[in-house]
């Protein structure tokens, strides 16, 4: 019954596996060549045809990459920025989602629309005043400058609100009547029960921030404040033809997000499809 899409005939199966494998190769290929190249010596890189299979494992390229650009510092900066954004989004969104899900107040719908409207305003249309503002208060080249514009999140608020709404409402009423404060209810009941949703938001916001480009490009000038996505280009500028070193750097800065993808695949996919499910 269930197996309509299951293919029974051997030959048909083989063709499907062939198609699947070809599709997978196409999707993985750019990353794969990057990894292979990152281990090649310069002499193997310049030979023709291009090396598509790993012929050597030259770890020195990675040492060379971290020597030419402070990659570890860039990764640290990105971690601080991403963690800062992640933590503040978790706090801000939990609080707002709690108000939307459990508290009564007049004009809730209007406040909801205010939140929603921030998702409709493209970041680029406000970026010039934001850039000038951060410059004026002297937050360029600081972690506060990197983190502060992204502390509130309408998407995260809606995600958590949706989850909170599914928690038993009677429990809330009973707890409040028994004298439990709202803050304590949020901290001791709601948040522990909402770990899946919090995990989704955490992974999603960390990844989005780690991969950010335009904002850190604008507000960081000193090398030691650059984030990975900007800093990685130092290699490309300095060593235009040392592609093995550039690729070693690219692979290095990708490792945190690839690990995140592997260990938190489910949370990540839930976060990414959350917008789609609303239709």
């Amino acid at each position, binding site marked *: 019954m269930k197996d*309509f899409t299951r293919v029974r005939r051997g030959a048909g199966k083989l063709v499907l596996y062939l198609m699947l494998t070809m599709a997978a190769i196409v999707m993985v290929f750019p990353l794969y060549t990057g990894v292979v190249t990152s281990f090649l010596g310069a002499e193997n890189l310049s030979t023709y045809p*291009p090396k598509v299979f790993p012929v050597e494992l030259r770890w020195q390229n990675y040492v060379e990459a971290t020597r030419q650009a402070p990659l570890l510092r860039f990764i640290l900066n990105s971690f601080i920025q991403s963690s800062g954004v992640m933590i503040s989004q978790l706090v801000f969104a939990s609080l707002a989602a709690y108000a939307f899900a459990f508290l009564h107040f007049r004009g809730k719908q209007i406040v909801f629309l205010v939140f929603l409207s921030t998702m409709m305003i493209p970041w*680029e249309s406000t970026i010039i005043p934001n850039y000038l503002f951060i410059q004026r208060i002297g937050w360029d080249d600081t972690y506060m400058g990197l983190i502060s514009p992204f502390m*509130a999140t309408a998407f995260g608020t809606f995600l958590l609100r949706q989850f909170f709404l599914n928690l038993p409402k009677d429990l809330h009423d009973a707890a409040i009547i028994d004298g439990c404060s709202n803050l304590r209810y949020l901290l001791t009941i709601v948040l522990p029960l909402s770990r899946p949703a919090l995990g989704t938001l955490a992974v999603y916001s960390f990844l989005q921030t780690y991969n950010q480009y335009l904002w850190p490009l604008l507000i960081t000038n000193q090398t030691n404040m650059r984030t990975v*996505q900007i800093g990685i280009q130092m290699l490309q500028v300095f060593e235009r033809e040392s592609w093995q070193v550039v690729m070693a750097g690219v692979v290095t800065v990708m490792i945190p997000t690839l690990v995140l993808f592997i260990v938190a695949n489910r949370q990540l*996919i839930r976060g990414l499809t959350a917008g789609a499910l609303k*239709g």
Partner: protein
Amino acid sequence: MELSLRRSTLARQRRRDLADWLRSLPYLAPSLIAFAIFVFIPLIRSVILSLYGTNPIGQMTTFVGLKYYRRLLTSPVYHNSLVVTLKFVLYTVPGVLIVSLILATLGNLRLKGISIYRIAFALTISISGATAALLFMFLYHPVIGVFNYLLSLVGISPIAWLIDTKWALFAVAVPRIWLQSGFATVVLLAGMQGISDELYEAARIDGAGFWQSWRHITFPLITPSLFFLLVVTTLSAFQTFTEVNVLTHGGPIDSTQVVVHEIYRNFYFNGQYGYASAQALVLFVIIMVLTIIQFGVIEKRVYYA
């Protein structure tokens, strides 16, 4: 008597509203304040800025009215950036939708080991625009790049991907299609897995083959996901910056100068904050109008289960 009663209930109601608000405000205030500082006030400041001339550090000096907007109407550089952006949308949006439809259809097959393939298809969701661009920059290398090598195998002479004005925009679009296909496949697969097996079973009893089932069951039932992707990929294509900045800086001869890169060049390098703000607001309006059109026109034809 009745009036004073009503007045007192009204007063009580108002007191209760106030109490509700005082209780709720601490929860809402952090987000509302952050939105005010980084979204709403900047949006208003953008509008004001677009009406003023500025000094090199972005302070408003002279009121110029609609001068910048008039300039937008006649500027060939700006018109070019709009055309380039539109082309970029036309490359990437159908590209992402077609690739992800194929990948999701394959990934939805019930075969042993399919989850490994699904992971391979979804891999790009963890990759950034900047690193994707660098990976492709190497593949585009005129001499040691794999793309030109593959072309040489079928007897096509090498292409200067990022230097040839005919190819540069396409070359910038490909990594974007690659990146977004992972995300799009995940979304479509989620949609496909929500389709009930009974529908397929009924179709099979009626003698429908794989292709017919796909055409008449799978495709109509994932139109909500496709619609969502259409909106998201179109909006993000209009906001493209990273790939252009890494691969071409808008060149050669502005052939990849998309709108956001044009805005960036105007305010960050040329210090034309007012003019760039006007451009940013036009982008805002374009995106708003597109969203409304997409929701209004296309959503009517989307099948919601």
